């Protein structure tokens, strides 16, 4: 749908574009973190790109990704650099930015893979204010730090909450109560 965007990115940034794929009509570009800001500003300002509308920002935790049976294409988790290995220092999170251009009517998804040890990416909230809360949400639920975000706080959960619940290793039903009825304390 917007192959020309991918081509332009490849032409301009070369090996900063780790991989590109077209998934069900969505064009996806996996980029190097160091170049993310440059790529973003290019996408925003270049007259041929003009991605003016931020759609969403989220992350994928690839901790438990495993190819099932023999169906389908090799999943991203099967790339060597994603291998958690013995002490879990593989690329664990993929931060996704979905962008749209209302001018040119094209859209693209930028991905950026980070390790658990330094789960941080440069913040794009200054460029697209729409990403302000979206990045806070991603930080809240996945614990990914966005460098340069003006106020990176929890947004859904409360400050007393420990951990980041959408990580695959956070148990679904692990509650952290703030208040309970005195006569019930101990039951939970």
């Amino acid at each position, binding site marked *: 749908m917007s192959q020309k965007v991918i081509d332009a990115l490849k032409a301009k940034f070369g090996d900063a574009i780790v991989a590109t794929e077209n998934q069900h009509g969505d064009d996806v570009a996996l980029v190097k973190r160091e170049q993310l800001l440059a790529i973003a500003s290019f996408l925003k300002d270049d007259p041929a790109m003009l991605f003016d509308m*931020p*759609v969403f920002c989220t992350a994928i935790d690839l901790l438990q*990704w495993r190819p099932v049976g023999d169906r389908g294409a090799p999943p991203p988790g099967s790339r060597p650099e994603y291998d958690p290995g013995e002490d879990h220092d593989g690329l664990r999170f993929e931060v996704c930015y*979905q962008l749209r251009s209302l001018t040119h009517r094209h859209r693209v998804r930028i991905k950026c893979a980070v390790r658990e040890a330094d789960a941080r990416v440069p913040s794009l909230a200054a460029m697209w204010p729409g990403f302000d*809360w979206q990045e806070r949400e991603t930080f809240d639920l996945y614990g990914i730090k966005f460098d340069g975000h003006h106020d990176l706080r929890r*947004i*859904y959960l409360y400050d007393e909450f420990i951990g980041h619940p959408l990580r695959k290793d956070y148990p679904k039903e692990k509650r952290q109560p703030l208040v309970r009825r005195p006569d019930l304390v101990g039951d939970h």
Partner: protein
Amino acid sequence: MADLKTLVMGRKDVADLDLETELPPELMTVNMGPSHPAMHGTVRIVLSVDGERIVKGDIQPGYLHRCFEKEAEHATYTQIFPYTDRLNYVSPMINNCGYAMAVEKLLGLTGHIPRRAEFIRVIVSEVSRITDHLTCVGASAMELGAFGPFLFFLKVREWLYTWLEEVSGARLTHSYVRVGGVNKDLPAGWAEKLDRRLTEMEGVMVEVESMLNLNRIFHDRMAGIGVMTRAEAIAWGQSGPIARSAGVDYDVRKDHPYSVYPEFEFDVPLGTSGDCLDRYLIRVEEIKQSTRILRQAMKMIPDGPWIIDDGKVALPPKTEAYNTIEAMIRHFKHIVDGIKVAPGECYTFLEGGNGELGFFIVSDGTGRPYKCYVRSPSFVHLSATSKLIKNHLIADIVPIFGMINMIGGECDK
């Protein structure tokens, strides 16, 4: 007597009110919510006010964070429909459709859904859109003191709920749509009933508009309040009535057509000033446009199956499931293992009641999504609200919030 005063005023006597400490010169911090009549759903705002003027508003959502994503990662693709119902619970059918479309895209079924199913989806979605706008406008009017329109609109919504109940079996949380179609055909005589309801509704619309549009108080409370420019709207990722009120000509049904929408004639109302009054007018106009679509759909809807004929996607009829081993096995594999979706990811979006509602699903080939992110318009709209309420009076929060139409379930997920 002193005790009584203590009870009433919280201090011994009005005389010992210390102006220095009780009315400090610096900004005052006021807390609104999380349980507040003017807050649709539950959201908390910490306001720094200079007298009545809002200097800074820190909006804190999350009081209804029900972990849609975590639940979805632990449920099969079919089990997730009830959770989508409760995202935007004012227009559940649209969420159902959006989620179903996402899964169908991953399955490669887009375009292979029976035409009747597509039409049914459009019909129930538009009815849901109407109920959404009715609730939004009615409730906001009530919060501005106009209790009449609220009662009128809820009466109409009741008619539509009754109709939706006949279709799906539930008043509010329908779970009517399925991957590959809808779970049963429309009931006999649905068209006549819907037609009558719509006609009656148009009558009520006239009444309500005559009550509101030229109402001086309503006008003053809405016009010029919470203005958002076109550039702001785009940069903040706004969509739906909010963006259109600011003149952004963007409606997914027109710009990225899905389902059978290209076959219908309808207009997308645009605002000019981007204030609350425009948002109200646009919603009212969209109700009429939805009615237009419904009237066309009632004529155009074809006969045929309402769910795709694919044993790996659709459940077998219960009568067979209980009596033949073949259907029983199909039922078991469907319920226990879930619909197997090939590894991949896709972002599918459609025009929800509030704007662009999108589902970003990542599949690892099993019967449950590896990730199921929902791009909820309310959340995006609310992120811009702190800008909108700035430099307004506290009382203006009411219309602004009313017209942002923040739906807790959708915003907090």
